[in-house]
């Protein structure tokens, strides 16, 4: 038999061996097939269902590795997940003259008595209309509609829906991703999922309690710099001089003896001259130098403080230093607009730096309607062992029944080997695309072994029916008949599982994806190969 005939006769088995080898490489060789995470990120984005916005949903993939390249999900690795909807409502397709944009948002703010951060107007390039959002629970739909009408915008209560826009959710996902991955933890993941028409922001971190995670997520992290200075009548006045968007660069937190804990920042070059002018105008660079004794009643009316305000709370106060004041007076500062933002301790400096860099959370999350899940890593490790044991026991049971049924190792042994090959290929695939494996996926693997063996039984029975297989032609014809049933059965399983793969039903997406992939690998690769193995063992060559 020449090489060509050999390949022609056994190409299905050869294909199976190739796939198993590739899977083993993907599973066990460090680095696997794809050395970087790009593929994993790609799928994460695709699963999140936000098209064309890779940055918004970029999920960072865990890098912790054991002796395989498998990535474990929350239910096998431990960690905490909080899924919460976003607070807010939206009015879409509003006809607003672009010149009136500022006026309209000012009116909305005043009418609804909201902070600037809780009102958002967005211009939609495609439709040429505006979208208005408010991020609070304290306003009803009719109040929102009323405020829009006051601002002379044509809108009724029917135009307003609960929930926020995709753009807002994307911004939030980006912000949360930065927040959870910069707080000294890695392996955080954030995405959105659409459950029954409502969007939830799903955040996963490896080692916080649900309460800690909620606390981090409920801080919106809106940072402002407020000038606190005498109003001339013996008391103080406050004026916001810098906002989040005014900074060009933010450095990591730093410490020195003179300034204490602080975050070095630079102000945007188009903002810096105005800021410098304002500081000169209200006296911070002259009489105010070094004059800050915040909240001391005795200093009332004489304080010149720059306050660092996060979410409306003053976290630090300091005066203008002499050198900086001089630079500002001479007008040189605006050419190199660097300064530092003070913080009382290292932790505050860290969170200040993160808040500045990540930006503020556009809208608050609604933790009253959330879902949380948390699992201690110790229990997760036990679950890993348990699922391995359960999987092995299930495979042994299947093997036992199959052997009892056929009492022919030539039929039964390749069946078990083929079913296992299916699992290996699937595991390799999961490792290659960095698909996180959890308990639902384990259930999926067991289901795959189940359907796989079912199909192999169909092949074996069909091929061995009506006497011995004595020619290749007889074998091929019987194999084709068996394959019609297998294809039909695979089709129904895929149809039955596909809603789960698309709908966001908690962890079940993974279960469905594994089952569908397993069925496909089975029908296309492993089950045909089993046919070839049987033929080799049963036909007279």
């Amino acid at each position, binding site marked *: 038999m020449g090489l060509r005939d050999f390949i022609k006769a056994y190409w299905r088995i050869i294909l199976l061996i190739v796939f198993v080898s590739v899977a083993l490489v993907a599973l066990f060789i460090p680095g696997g097939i794809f050395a970087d995470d790009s593929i994993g990120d790609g799928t994460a984005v695709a699963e999140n269902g936000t098209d064309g916005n890779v940055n918004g949903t970029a999920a960072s993939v865990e890098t912790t590795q054991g002796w395989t390249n498998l990535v474990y999900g929350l239910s096998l690795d431990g960690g905490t997940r909080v899924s919460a909807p976003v607070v807010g409502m939206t009015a879409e397709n509003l006809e607003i003259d672009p010149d009136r944009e500022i006026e309209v948002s000012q009116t909305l703010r005043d009418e609804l008595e909201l902070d600037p951060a809780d009102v958002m107007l967005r211009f939609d390039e495609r439709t040429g209309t505006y979208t208005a959002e408010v991020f609070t629970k304290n306003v009803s739909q009719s109040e929102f509609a009323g405020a829009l009408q006051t601002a002379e915008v044509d809108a009724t209560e029917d135009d307003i829906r609960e929930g926020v826009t995709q753009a807002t959710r994307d911004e939030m996902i980006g912000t949360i991703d930065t927040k959870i991955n910069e707080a000294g933890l890695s392996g955080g993941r954030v995405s959105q999922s659409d459950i029954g028409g409502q969007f939830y922001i799903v955040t996963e971190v490896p080692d916080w309690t649900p309460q800690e995670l909620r606390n981090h997520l409920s801080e919106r992290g809106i940072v402002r710099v407020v000038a606190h200075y005498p109003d001339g009548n013996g008391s103080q006045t406050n004026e916001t001089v810098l906002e989040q968007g005014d900074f060009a660069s933010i450095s990591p937190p730093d410490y020195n003896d003179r300034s204490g804990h602080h975050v070095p920042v630079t102000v945007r070059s188009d903002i810096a001259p105005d800021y410098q002018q304002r500081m000169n105008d209200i006296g911070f660079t002259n009489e105010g130098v070094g004059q800050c004794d915040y909240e001391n009643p005795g200093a009332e009316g004489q304080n010149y403080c720059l306050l660092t305000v996060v979410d409306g709370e003053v976290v630090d106060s300091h005066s203008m230093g002499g050198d900086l004041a001089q630079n500002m007076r001479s007008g040189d500062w605006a050419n190199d607009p660097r300064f530092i933002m003070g913080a009382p301790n290292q932790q505050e400096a860290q969170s200040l730096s993160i808040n500045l860099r990540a930006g503020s959370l556009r809208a608050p999350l609604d933790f009253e309607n959330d879902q949380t899940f948390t699992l201690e890593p110790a229990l997760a490790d036990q679950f890993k062992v348990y699922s391995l044991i359960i999987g092995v026991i299930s495979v042994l049971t299947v093997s036992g029944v199959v052997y009892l049924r056929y009492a022919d190792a030539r039929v039964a042994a390749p069946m078990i080997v083929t079913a296992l090959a299916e699992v290996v290929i699937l595991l390799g695939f999961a490792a290659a695309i960095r698909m996180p494996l959890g308990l639902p996926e384990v259930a999926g693997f067991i289901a795959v072994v189940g359907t796989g063996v079912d199909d192999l*039984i169909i092949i074996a029975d069909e091929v061995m029916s009506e006497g011995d297989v004595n020619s290749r032609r007889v074998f091929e014809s019987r194999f084709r008949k068996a394959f019609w049933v297998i294809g039909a059965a695979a089709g129904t399983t895929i149809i039955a599982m596909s809603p789960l793969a698309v709908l966001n039903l908690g962890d079940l997406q993974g279960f469905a994806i594994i089952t569908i992939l397993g069925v496909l690998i089975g029908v296309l690769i492993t089950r045909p190969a089993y046919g070839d193995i049987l033929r080799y063992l049963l036909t007279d060559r």
Partner: protein
Amino acid sequence: MGYFDVPEIDYTRYSNRQLAAVPLAVLAVALAILGGWYVFTGAPVGLGIEFAGGTELTVDTATDESDIPDAFDEEVSSIQSVQTEDNRYIVQFTSTDDEALREQAESNLEPLGGNDGVVMSGSSTSASFGAQTQQTALYGIGIAFVGMSVFAFILFRTFVPSVAIVVSAFSDIVIPLAFMNLAGIPLTLGTVAALLLLIGYSVDSDILLNNSILRRSGDFYESTHRAMRTGVTMTVTSMAAMLVMAISATLFGVELLASVGLILFVGLAADLMNTYMLNLSMLRWYKFKGVNR
């Protein structure tokens, strides 16, 4: 061949009506149970916390099982001990205030020696989140079932055999649902997954039977027996795997795998009856009487 073989049943002894009566009666009882449940509880099946809302904590504690409810201000709806791990309990609450429940567990339950914490795992679902999940799950099951039905019609392109598949698959889902009510298993995401998988699994043996009888040469009873030999082997193998998975996962306290295994076991058992009594009687009627009409 083999240590066991699928027995040949003499179907000629039973009329179609007799054959169909048993599975239809079981289906009627199952539907009655679901209906009764709906009338008395407002839902056809008991909903787990993922759908109804509530909190579940897994705790490792030296406190006695009977004293655990006293540790919490809120009412405990169920406590289950984990067989393979002493002193591990799964406690469920209808309250969704997981932060308070966690604190109460940590401060009022006695940790095991060598552990600082009590709560090993916790999950909490608000009622609105649960309601949304429930709706999505219903959609999922509905779409899967309709999709499967359409596919069955495309495969066989004849009315009676396709309907036979759809009716058996329907019964295969309804019977385990009724069983869940009787056994006190609530509907969770795991059981929904199992029900969907059941649609895929159970149709296999129906397709095999239909294919053997309709598309293959040979006498009706010969074809039936040929399909049964393969089909029963398949189903029994899967049932064995699922039973073992259900038992071992229950012992280990891995709820998701336990419920998937148990529901599939019951559903596949129902499928044996539905395929070889209900589906078969419909096919026989179609083959011997239907064609003459």
